[in-house]
């Protein structure tokens, strides 16, 4: 039966609330300081006004992504998707506002990533994703280990995930689109690059987070990581065939390279950002999947949605405190005897 996709008042209400979230994030985290990156595809992006414009566009695309997610998820999953979009807001909205990460190249890659996810709902999704991956990696080579890789894994999952009938092979069209995407990914990575982003000047780590804070944040986020991996494992184990099962594992493994590489480069902020945001987006797209009804929390298959609301509020506040205070920055302690006004 064909679904009817309509924008409802509650969807717009949610997007408005998310807009307010963005405003509050700007007030809290953006202190109008800007440290331009050395390597940017366009010189203009090293100016603060264009960085502001880029960030504004990123927020706009994120809002659009939220609206599309709510419209396409179906009534029965709206509350779950709303919850996951709130989690996404916590991990991804404040990320590009602190001084060291304002206007960085990652914000544009993230915007392109969301655009491609939006377009996945359209008729031409298969081919468009490949083109977006190509553009993203040409723009920012580090996207090859972060958003580009995740989108590739997601395309693989969409191609090989279990269908209504488990004996059904992915259609020829889907396989061709996947091949097209993989080829574009490889070509984007290997084509010689301009001097602004040669292989030995790829990473420009910012040392916002110390190693101690980074490790503490990772340890505090570990319980959530365990929940996520357990979910994917339980879902994967439901699959009887190898390829559908492997497609879930791909979503899991796609989040790791960015985390490991940025961690080894000393940019713990980015490492944590990519791990958390890719995990949340994975859960979001899984929730929107046709055949899934909820997330598995434990071996007893008790869904997080069957548990009390206070548990979800606890998880949300827990994540918010770790991300807002430990990762994205703590308020500065003013020096004694210093009166600013």
């Amino acid at each position, binding site marked *: 039966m064909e679904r009817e996709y309509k924008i409802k008042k*509650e*969807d717009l*209400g*949610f997007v*408005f*609330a*998310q807009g*307010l*979230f963005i405003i*509050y*994030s700007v*007030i*809290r985290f*953006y*202190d*109008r300081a800007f440290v331009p990156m050395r390597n940017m595809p366009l010189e203009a992006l090293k100016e603060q006004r264009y960085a502001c414009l880029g960030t504004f566009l990123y927020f706009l695309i994120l809002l659009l992504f939220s609206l599309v997610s*709510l419209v396409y998820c179906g009534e029965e999953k*709206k*509350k779950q998707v*709303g*919850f996951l979009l*709130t989690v996404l*807001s*916590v991990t991804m909205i404040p990320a590009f506002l602190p001084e060291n990460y304002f206007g960085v190249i990652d914000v544009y890659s993230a915007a392109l990533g969301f655009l491609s996810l939006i377009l996945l709902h359209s008729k031409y999704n298969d081919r468009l994703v490949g083109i977006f991956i190509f553009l993203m990696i040409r723009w920012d080579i580090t996207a090859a280990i972060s958003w580009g890789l995740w989108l590739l894994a997601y395309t693989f999952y969409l191609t090989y995930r279990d269908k209504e009938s488990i004996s059904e092979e992915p259609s020829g069209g889907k396989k061709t689109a996947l091949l097209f995407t993989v080829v574009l990914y490889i070509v984007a990575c290997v084509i010689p690059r301009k001097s602004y982003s040669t292989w030995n000047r790829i990473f420009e780590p910012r040392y916002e987070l110390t190693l101690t804070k980074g490790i*503490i944040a990772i340890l*505090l986020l570990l319980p959530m990581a365990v929940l996520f991996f357990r979910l994917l494992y339980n879902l994967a184990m439901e699959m009887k065939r190898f390829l559908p099962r492997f497609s879930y594992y791909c979503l899991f493994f796609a989040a790791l390279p960015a985390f490991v590489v940025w961690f080894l480069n000393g940019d713990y902020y980015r490492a944590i950002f990519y791990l958390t945001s890719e995990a949340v987006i994975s859960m979001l797209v899984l929730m929107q999947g046709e055949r899934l009804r909820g997330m598995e929390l434990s071996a007893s298959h008790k869904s997080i949605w069957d548990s*009390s*609301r*206070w548990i*979800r*509020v*606890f998880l*949300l*506040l*827990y994540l*918010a*405190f*770790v991300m*807002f*205070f*430990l990762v994205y920055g*703590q*308020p*500065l*302690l*003013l020096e*004694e*005897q210093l*009166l600013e*006004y």
Partner: protein
Amino acid sequence: MNKVKKIYPAVLSLFGLIVFLTCCQWRVRSYNTTMLALDYKNGFTSRALLGTIYHILNAILPWDLMNYNAVFVFSIVVTLLFLVLIVVFAVTCLKRSDEQLRDVVMIILLLFTAVSMSTFSGGYNFLRVDIFMLAVSMIGAVCLITEKYTWLVIPFSAIGVMFHQGYVFMYFNIILVLLIIRFIDAKNSRDKIRYGVYFAASFVVGSLLFLYFELFSRNSGQAVYEKVVAEAEALSYRGIYHTTLLAHEVLGIDLGDTEKGLRLVNRIQFPIYILVMIPFIVYFVILFSGIFKEAKKRKMGRFKYLCVLAGPLTMLPDFLLKVDYGRWIMCVVAYYFVVLLSLLAMRDTVVEDEIARVNVIMTTHLWSYMLLVYPVFFLPYWDVDISESMRFANRWLADLIPNLYRYVEWW
């Protein structure tokens, strides 16, 4: 349900610990360390109770506490003990509240933990005397909820004022309003008399001590000033103590004029804060309008809930005369959390029905989870600056509008 009762305190403790770890800036501010140098050995002066307790601990424990490192450890211990108190208060409320509302009560407790632990772990209010004042009121609330050892509210009133005479404006309203509620709800004349006497006695004790500390306690400070300064230097980070505090508390010098510039900050930040709190103010208005509508049907109902609503009016002198708006807002927020939770624990049917109604309104909306995260942007509360966000907003406006402070000064 029993399983939840067992795990919730552990979850709340864990959450409080996480808030502490993420918000703590690992430094005790000079104002709060200098407070420890005040001691009743130098006379029965205001704000000296905390210092006296610290000196007693120094005398009885086998370690030398008269240095900054010891103060730092003491601060951590105090903050974690406060977390224990929050858990005790939470368990008390949960045991007594309606089963149907358990989920709501748990969420409110999570938010209260977030607000209070972040404020008292953050840089400005780490080991601030406010934590002790709130703790005293919360213990009093537990006594009044359980109706055990209720007479303790009288000495608690005295203790609160001895920590800081500002207690009469800041957190005393919690105990007074709960006493009024117990008085109105008392089923027999014996209980009515009892609560009436407790209210009167608490009020008189608190007021007399306030007047004494405010008007008569700062005499002959010159004789002990050098000694107090030496102790304050030893207790403070890098020996930098708070000169204004000692000048005011020991020498009795009024330094109100030095705060003139800081009032301008309040006049800019407070309206912005009210603006960003509009989503919560809307729900607050919905809740209390429902409460008043229901209260019409009960004897003395309107008066009772008017006392609940108007309790924070005791803060008015502070809002008008003093500049620590972050702390005053914390007082107002903490008041409503503690009093509403206490009413739920006392099985006040009007408050139960209305909170259930507001909960239904909220949960029907997709953005209800988003709303619960908003407060985190404005935590922790500071002192003159309401919070980091308000400080940023203040600077933005000041850069955007030339001569902003001149316009505000006129106002």
